[in-house]
């Protein structure tokens, strides 16, 4: 059952991804000002969406773990933090590659770039904690607290960095209320790419989450068996 679902999701992801790649490279018209590099945008934005969604789930599962308990919430948070980190890295790298020909620099301390970098560092710290501290209910609680506090910190980071400086292009909605995507084909491409990356996120989450669930059950069984063997030795 679960396997069929995973396979269907994988097939759907592949199909959508293929469509997104076709639309990005063939279907969509080249943007007039930025030229061909603008096509990075169609995958850059979905990566950012997946990263933020994943980090959001980290905080939500942290709250549920502290509230209800249950290893399942911890596994969900761990899987999402990892996937979020992968996509956050992709956002930074693709953004940097786009910025080089357009802005003339690899990196600039613009507000969105800075915020994304801080997020990357925040959840890097979260994953370091999990990697260094191992697995125990105690570490799961620590991770839940860090996940919640980090997410609560994000709005303050956003406001402070925005006041600090900003030059990132407001592509989606400009101040005049119109979006910067002039051609309906551009909007269509972005939407398909968003769907493709959402499906990819769901698929990655499913396999990583399933793997972590197995690991947790395995650890519990090993503990039980250790106890049983110790008891058998006493007989």
């Amino acid at each position, binding site marked *: 059952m679960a396997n069929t679902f995973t396979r269907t999701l994988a097939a759907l992801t592949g199909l959508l991804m293929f469509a997104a790649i076709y639309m990005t490279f063939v279907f969509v018209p080249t943007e007039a000002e930025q030229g*061909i*590099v603008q096509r*990075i945008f169609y995958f850059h934005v979905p990566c950012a969406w997946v990263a933020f969604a994943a980090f959001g789930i980290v905080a939500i599962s942290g709250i549920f773990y502290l509230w209800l308990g249950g290893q399942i919430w911890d596994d969900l948070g761990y899987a999402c933090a990892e996937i979020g980190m992968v996509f956050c890295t992709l956002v930074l*790298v693709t953004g940097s590659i*786009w910025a080089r020909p357009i802005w003339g620099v690899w990196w600039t301390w613009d507000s969105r770039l800075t915020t994304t970098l801080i997020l990357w560092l925040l959840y890097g710290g979260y994953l370091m904690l999990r990697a260094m501290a191992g697995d125990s209910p105690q570490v799961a609680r620590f991770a839940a607290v860090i996940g919640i506090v980090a997410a609560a910190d994000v709005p303050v980071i956003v406001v402070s960095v925005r006041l600090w400086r900003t030059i990132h292009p407001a592509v989606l909605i400009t101040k005049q209320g119109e979006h910067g995507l002039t051609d309906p084909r551009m909007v269509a491409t972005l939407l398909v790419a968003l769907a493709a990356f959402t499906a*990819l996120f769901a698929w990655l989450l499913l396999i990583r989450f399933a793997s972590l669930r197995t*690991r947790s059950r*395995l650890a519990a069984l090993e503990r039980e*068996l250790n106890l049983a063997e110790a008891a058998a030795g006493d007989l």
Partner: protein
Amino acid sequence: MDNLGYLGAAYAIIFGVIFLYVIFIQRRQAKLDERMRALEARLAEVRDDLRRRSAG
């Protein structure tokens, strides 16, 4: 149009990283499978032990 290299690099990195991550997930899953087999072997041992004890 000389910026094609940047575009190619960006897409190569995106799919490269995602591919590597999937490989990473699978490798850790393989390790789990190994642990599972070890656990099953130990379980069988304990069962045999118990059976011998109850028989003897």
